[in-house]
């Protein structure tokens, strides 16, 4: 297939492409299994093959994809992409230019001990049903486990001479349980199996007996939630546990700092950003305790893929240092455009975050691992002990964010009231809201390494056509002062 790809790129250069690349999904498999109340609810095997071709002509992008794997079909798709680029160039203000990058011949393989596709179907079903049985309780309406295994073999070749092959294996699994509370209204507890940032990504995660701790915790927490009082409306301190910190970071740091979004390319759909180019190097985005990064080099994460779809090697980029905004989530194209617009070099190199969900999509800026550095405020117990009046919150239930990511409203699955340094009781239906910048500036305690966890996210949507991306957030537990809750 490398031969086909090389021939297509040479052909497109002959046909007038100033730049061309092709991404071929030689293999793209997904196996999904879900259980419910002791039954196998769904078992599905999905397989696809195809490629996407991207070209630059007259400073504009054209893109075409196809699933017909012959050389002729690839050339036809390429010619179609050239025609699209020419048409697009009828309405551009500034020609696309790409930041320099190293020419690479390399391959990348996800760290994996046990390839889930080599495990027998019987073993998989048996293990998931075993986890399912641990979630059961007579007060529950539904419970189960859903797991998806992904395996992709992707070739990338561009007209600058890079040739990259990636073998990616990912695992996404969730525990869930639903029950009616004292008012007959449904409550839930869910848990995404976290991945060890230094671990591996295969079936070994599912057979790890630590998962039984999680099934027991989810079951017990849901039982307690059913009789817990409602969260009251007040202004108090909030302590966000890692699943909630992942959402907070995702929505109000991650999406706000995508450079294409800052420039206005997502305006009609997802929205803009409250961040401006003038803010880089200046804006006090959060308190001095906040250091955030876009780190594509985390050893084990669905956000670590070795090279992005521009063929740039993964990097660890500091986005916010001691509260001050430094960098963004960037690609080759957008940094050139942003630097030109700002009239200064804000961004020195692509952050290697240009990614496409599928061969049928054009790559755009996507979060890789948007992480927050652990702090020096001790363990979770230390943070709770230091809190006079607060709420400890975990697991997103709903999220709604202003179109410029300037404000947010989040609901949580579970929360605990803290009074005088001690947890007093659980509360249900806890919500909180705030303005993004003032919220991050109210960050006053950051937990140490013991509270830091990598939370995978498999459902981040962005762009048109909409692309769902896999990524993660490595975050500690954090405390924020004076937050509006329960409204």
């Amino acid at each position: 297939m490398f031969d086909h790809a090389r021939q297509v790129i040479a052909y497109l250069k002959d046909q007038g492409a100033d730049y061309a690349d092709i991404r071929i999904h030689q293999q793209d498999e997904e196996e999904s299994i879900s259980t419910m109340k002791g039954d196998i609810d769904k078992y599905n095997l999905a397989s696809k093959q195809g490629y996407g071709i991207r070209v630059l002509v007259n400073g504009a992008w054209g893109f075409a994809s196809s699933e017909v794997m012959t050389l002729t079909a690839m050339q036809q798709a390429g010619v179609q992409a050239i025609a699209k680029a020419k048409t697009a160039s009828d309405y551009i203000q500034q020609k696309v230019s790409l930041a320099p990058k190293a020419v690479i011949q390399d391959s990348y393989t996800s760290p994996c001990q046990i390839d889930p596709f080599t495990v027998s179907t019987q073993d998989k079903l048996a293990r998931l049903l075993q986890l399912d049985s641990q979630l059961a309780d007579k007060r529950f309406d539904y419970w189960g486990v859903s797991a998806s295994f992904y395996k992709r073999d992707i070739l990338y070749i561009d007209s600058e001479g890079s040739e990259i092959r990636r073998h990616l294996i990912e695992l996404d699994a969730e525990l869930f349980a639903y029950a009616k509370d004292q008012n007959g209204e449904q409550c839930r507890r869910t848990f995404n199996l976290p991945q060890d940032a230094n671990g591996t990504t295969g079936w070994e995660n599912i057979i790890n007996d630590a998962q039984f701790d999680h099934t027991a915790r989810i079951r017990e927490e849901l039982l307690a939630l059913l009789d817990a009082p409602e969260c009251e409306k007040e202004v108090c301190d909030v302590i966000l546990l890692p699943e909630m910190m992942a959402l907070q970071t995702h929505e109000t740091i991650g999406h706000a700092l995508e450079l294409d979004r800052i420039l206005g390319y997502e305006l009609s759909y997802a929205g803009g950003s409250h961040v401006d180019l003038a803010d880089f190097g200046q804006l006090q985005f959060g308190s001095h305790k906040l250091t955030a990064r876009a780190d594509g080099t985390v050893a084990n994460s669905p956000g670590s893929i070795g090279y992005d779809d521009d063929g740039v090697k993964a990097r660890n980029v500091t986005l916010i240092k001691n509260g001050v905004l430094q960098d963004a989530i960037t690609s080759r194209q957008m940094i050139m455009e942003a630097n030109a617009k700002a009239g200064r070099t804000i961004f020195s190199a692509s952050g290697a975050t240009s990614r496409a969900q599928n061969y049928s999509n054009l790559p755009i800026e996507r979060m890789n691992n948007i992480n927050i550095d652990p702090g020096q405020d001790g363990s979770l117990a230390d943070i709770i002990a230091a809190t006079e009046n607060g709420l400890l919150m975990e697991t997103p239930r709903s999220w709604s964010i202003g179109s410029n990511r300037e404000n947010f409203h989040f609901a949580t699955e579970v929360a605990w009231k803290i009074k005088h340094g001690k947890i007093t009781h659980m509360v249900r239906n806890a919500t909180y809201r705030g303005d993004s910048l003032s919220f991050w500036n109210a960050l006053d305690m950051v937990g140490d390494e013991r509270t830091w966890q990598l939370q995978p996210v498999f459902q981040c949507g962005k762009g048109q056509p909409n692309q769902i991306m896999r990524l993660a957030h490595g975050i500690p537990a954090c405390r924020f002062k004076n937050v509006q809750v329960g409204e």
Partner: protein
Amino acid sequence: MSKQSTHKAMHTTMQPVLKLLTEINTFMKNEGITGSITYRQESSHMVRCGRSQISLNVSEEGEKYFVEIQAGKRKISGSTTAQANDSDKLKTLVSTLNERVKLMPEVPHMSPMAAIVQGDLNRFNADGALINLDSKVMVDLFRRCGEHFAHGNVEVSGAFSAGVYSYAIINTLVDAPVAYQGSDYNVELVLQLLDHDKKELRVADVGEALNQFDANSLIKQLDASYQLLTNTPRQDIEPGEYDVIFHADAFGDLINYLGYMALHGETYQYGMGMLQQDKHQIGSQLFGNNFTITDDPTDPEVLFARPVGENGIARQPFPLISNGVLSNQFYSDKDDCDRFGIARNNDMDVASIKVATGNGPADFAAMVKSCAKPTLFISFIHYMNLTNAAKGEFTGSSRFGTFLIANGEIKAHLYNQRINDSYHRIFNQIEWLSSQLHHVNMSSTYGMRSASSIACPRFVKVNKVKITGSSAPGKG
């Protein structure tokens, strides 16, 4: 945006597909396998604009075959990309699944597979002009919009999506596939006014055929909003309860969520929506008696009417909310229905929802004039989400022009306002619905193309909507 009723010629690629489906179905029967095969195809074009330039001009061709096999009370499914000459690839998938289905545990409540509907139900409604669309039509809209507003310091953005989609279904209890082919376009055009506090405005359109698309009309509508936004001061209001007039683009979004929360039968059975089985059943008065919703594939006023669902179930006129009373709920998925021992009655994925019009103002000028008391006008809801599904509570923020109207005129252009309310309250507090119908695009651009829209009144006035914050600095 009137409905095209003429039946068009079948897209030439469909005939080999129907032949292949029949061949694989026969293969399954000969092997003693019980199962179904569903085909889905799309040919999509999209042009996207940002910063007053084209950022993306893409095309996507996709064909997928979905196979489901049932062996007694065991079931398995799989899918693959394939072309119409790939019968071996599909037979391999069938054989793989047929081997593996034996490993599946029995599901006690699983019912036998049912035959898909048969008869003269094939529809080939695709517009030839959208099948072979030149992306110049799409690029030109944005270029012309840029030229029109060249005098102002504005940035043009938006997306224009157009294409053709097909599906066909067969199973081993019948001999012939049922097929549908349609086309659609949807477009949104957005301006950001750089000299006016980055105010944003938007127009949108959806249709079935290219001759329904009118670039001049869209730019004219945008111009009218532009005049309003540049001639009104920016203002903020205190949180509280306000009478709100929703434009169809905002109201359609509320209806779309209501569909999942109240009209989706499986959600109701799982208790995951806003209705509780002990309090709300078919026949319950859920909402105000001025509120009626139907799904009627024979209604000439809806777009994308499909006589058969992607699940092979025939679709008939289907009243959902009749004068506030719950009349029907959608049951589309066999696995979920089996769990509750309920028969499938429709396919919600291809529904053509319509909200009945009322006697309210027909156009923008009349709508403004009708507001003597202070009233908010919300044209669009950004990022709606459920804060408490069981209570029907949601939040979302207004966007693209939120106005304060009083004494029959527009007083101010507001910051984006955050709503925290419940669907129970909203649909019980409708004061009036406009007499004019408007089509709102509901197709997502995720996954394979499948057109969807909601027909609803152009404006709907709701009393006492809860506003809890705004995008004004420090008011989140």
